[in-house]
């Protein structure tokens, strides 16, 4: 064990002294981060979290395939393993040292990604770092097994590159790392259930976007750990010190059993669990314009939301969408939470909080929350919308509109204080729904924290029509 630690520490030192290795270990993952969060997420905090999971998965996969796997083959081809072979250490020490070096190099990379995602893209830290660490550990373990298995069966660098490319690109495009799984045809989603990268990326997205715990991801974690164990056992048994040594066809075939945990997992997923969990995470992230059936609608005639059913928090949050001034180079942040107690003795309320941080050179930033609801035709129609508020003494603006179309109603401003008060927004349009929309009309309520820089907090409850 001590020999493995010493070799691993030396390997890390050698990486730190090699510019190309430094680039691919630390800077290359940052390029993915900037592409994914900059181009795909575009300031949506949920999308930041969703795509951050993909970036972390890419980083772990990359180090497993191209770092660890290729390095082992290169050392063997170069003949530098022979010198180790003369010392009283065995293949197990070499395999373990590779795993350790890979893991210890990966942790600062992931930390750098978290810091950059928060610093440059204002990604909210809605997940436990410990949970992230456990998942990174399981993922590194699984893909180290993958990389080392490939390095064990590949006789040359060229052969390893061929194997890596085939598997790498397969995982890249079919597992949800590049294209979100719910955007792919269902038959690909069914196939993706057999891929290890799928479990890693969807697990990251689940803990970050859906705030699931590790207990919710037991099956995924088990598959990653079993697969990693298989991989490392193969790497140990098939380890070769000399480039002249060739692996038998039988051993190559045997190593395919590495994928057994994922065959079992994929079959189980397809047969029992279904693919809905991926869809759910994606919808939480993307929050596309809601279909008619998904819209909030008055429950008791007038009540739209009272936030009392905390079990439906995630579904509730789908209807509330935060947007910021990120697209205008601002750094403002906004988040939603369900808090206790609510107004008028109720148990829960919705908290909209964050920080207004304008872009350099600007005095005003922008954080808004938009609530989408469906209003069925009725007679008489409501005259407006009201809700209870309390919060910081800051100016907030509210307006109600139909998607893509300003209603023309005046914007109302209010300043909450620490006690609950009711705010009413008259909206004549609510009483005159579109006659052509028999199923109802979609409306959006927008609440904006005023542009002055600083923290803000606003609690909302008892949202109803009047």
């Amino acid at each position, binding site marked *: 064990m*001590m*020999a493995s630690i*010493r*070799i691993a520490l*030396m390997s890390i*030192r*050698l990486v730190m*002294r*090699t510019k190309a290795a430094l680039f691919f270990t630390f800077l290359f993952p940052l390029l993915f981060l900037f592409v994914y969060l900059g181009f795909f997420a575009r300031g949506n905090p949920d999308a930041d979290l969703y795509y951050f999971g993909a970036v972390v998965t890419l980083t772990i996969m990359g180090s497993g395939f191209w770092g660890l796997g290729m390095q082992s083959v290169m050392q063997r081809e*170069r*003949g*530098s393993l*022979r*010198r180790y*072979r*003369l*010392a*009283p*250490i*065995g293949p197990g020490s070499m395999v373990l040292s590779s795993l350790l070096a890979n893991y210890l190099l990966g942790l600062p990379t992931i930390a750098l990604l978290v810091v950059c995602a928060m610093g440059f893209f204002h990604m909210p830290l809605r997940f436990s770092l410990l949970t992230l660490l456990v998942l990174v550990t399981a993922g590194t373990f699984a893909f180290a097994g993958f990389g080392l298995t490939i390095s064990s069966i590949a006789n040359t660098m060229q052969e390893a590159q061929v194997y890596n490319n085939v598997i790498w690109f397969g995982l890249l495009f079919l597992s949800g790392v590049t294209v979100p799984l719910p955007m792919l045809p269902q038959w690909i989603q069914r196939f993706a259930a057999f891929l290890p990268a799928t479990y890693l990326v969807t697990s990251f997205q689940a803990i970050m976007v859906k705030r699931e715990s590790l207990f919710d991801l037991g099956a995924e974690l088990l598959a990653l750990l079993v697969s990693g164990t298989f991989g490392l056992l193969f790497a140990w048994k098939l380890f070769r*010190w*000399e480039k002249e040594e060739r692996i038998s066809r039988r051993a190559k075939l045997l190593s395919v059993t590495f994928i057994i945990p994922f065959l079992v997992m994929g079959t189980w997923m397809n047969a029992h669990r279904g693919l809905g969990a991926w869809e759910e995470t994606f919808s939480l992230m993307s929050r596309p314009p809601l279909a008619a059936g998904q819209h909030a609608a008055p429950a008791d005639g007038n009540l739209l939301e009272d936030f009392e059913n905390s079990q439906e928090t995630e579904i509730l949050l789908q209807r509330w969408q935060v947007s910021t001034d990120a697209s205008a180079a601002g750094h403002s942040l906004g988040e939603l939470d369900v808090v206790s107690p609510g107004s008028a003795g109720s148990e829960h309320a919705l908290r909209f909080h964050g920080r207004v941080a304008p872009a350099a050179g600007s005095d005003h930033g922008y954080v808004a929350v938009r609530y989408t609801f469906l209003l069925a035709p009725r007679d008489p129609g409501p005259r407006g919308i009201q809700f209870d508020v309390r919060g910081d003494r800051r100016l907030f603006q509210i307006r109600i509109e139909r998607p893509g179309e300003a209603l023309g109603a005046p914007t109302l401003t209010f300043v909450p204080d620490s006690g609950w008060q009711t705010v009413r927004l008259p909206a004549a349009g609510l009483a005159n729904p579109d006659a052509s929309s028999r199923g109802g009309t979609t409306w959006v309520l927008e609440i904006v924290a005023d542009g002055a820089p600083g923290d803000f907090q606003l609690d909302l409850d008892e949202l109803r029509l009047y």
Partner: protein
Amino acid sequence: MSNHNNGAVVRVEGLSKRYGDIEALRGITFQILPGEVFGLLGPNGAGKTTTIEILEGLRQPDSGSVTVCGMAPAQEPAALKERIGAQLQATVLPDKIRVEEALELFASFYQHSASIEMLLERFGLAEKRRSFFEKLSGGQKQRLALALALVNDPELVLLDEPTVGLDAQLRRDIYALIEQFRAEGRTTLLTTHYIEEAERLCDRVAILDRGRVITLGTPRDLVESSGHGTRLEVRLAKPVLPSRLMQLDAVMDCREAEGRYFLHAQPPAPAVAALVRFLEAEGNALLDLHIAQPTLEDVFVEMTGRRIGD
């Protein structure tokens, strides 16, 4: 240093090894005694490296038995590696590892290790301790490889072609280091295809050819027992049949190569006189004459009909 197997540190019996169609070793047998510098001498492809790698535990023999420090390399590899030090024909380390780091890293693998400072001083690497492996010259790399072979203060040192590719000065430096091993009482096995190296350094030499030990003994015994006598190398103005030169007084054999005639004579003086008389009678002339004592090269030529470098 402890003795094993009736005094032998290394005992090899009937060792055979085949690579596909090629028989690398064909039943070789030898023993190495404690404190001895033992040489395996032979041309490329004779089986020297295969033999030493079997002793190191890097390769498995097809048949035969091997005991090193009282252990079978295949049975107790870790225990054996604690007691031997080895230098490979080509030692490759990571480019960016420093000299001192390499010694410290490899020393850390052993239960007992030598002083790194002492090794740096002894192998002339103290000034290069912070240098990367990639920045070392060929001689410095070779000295580092030798230092690595000694990091565990071994009782048996196995050196595979330790001076190959080095210039004369560096070779002499390595010779001095190997002579130090002898002075310290370490048992040393070295492979070489340099006659000078084997004659100068080795207490005993096994000459290998095509996977067989063709003769074994001290360099002096081998030369004396070869029966070749003194070697005369001559260049003549006109060609002459070697068979006619063989008829001269005291000449034991003669062969011609590239316009030169190589004669062995015992004793040499009458042979030289007879050669001069013969050339005068034939109207021929002596352009060049070298007289030398026989060497291990002559022994090899006598036994194989080829030169070691062929």
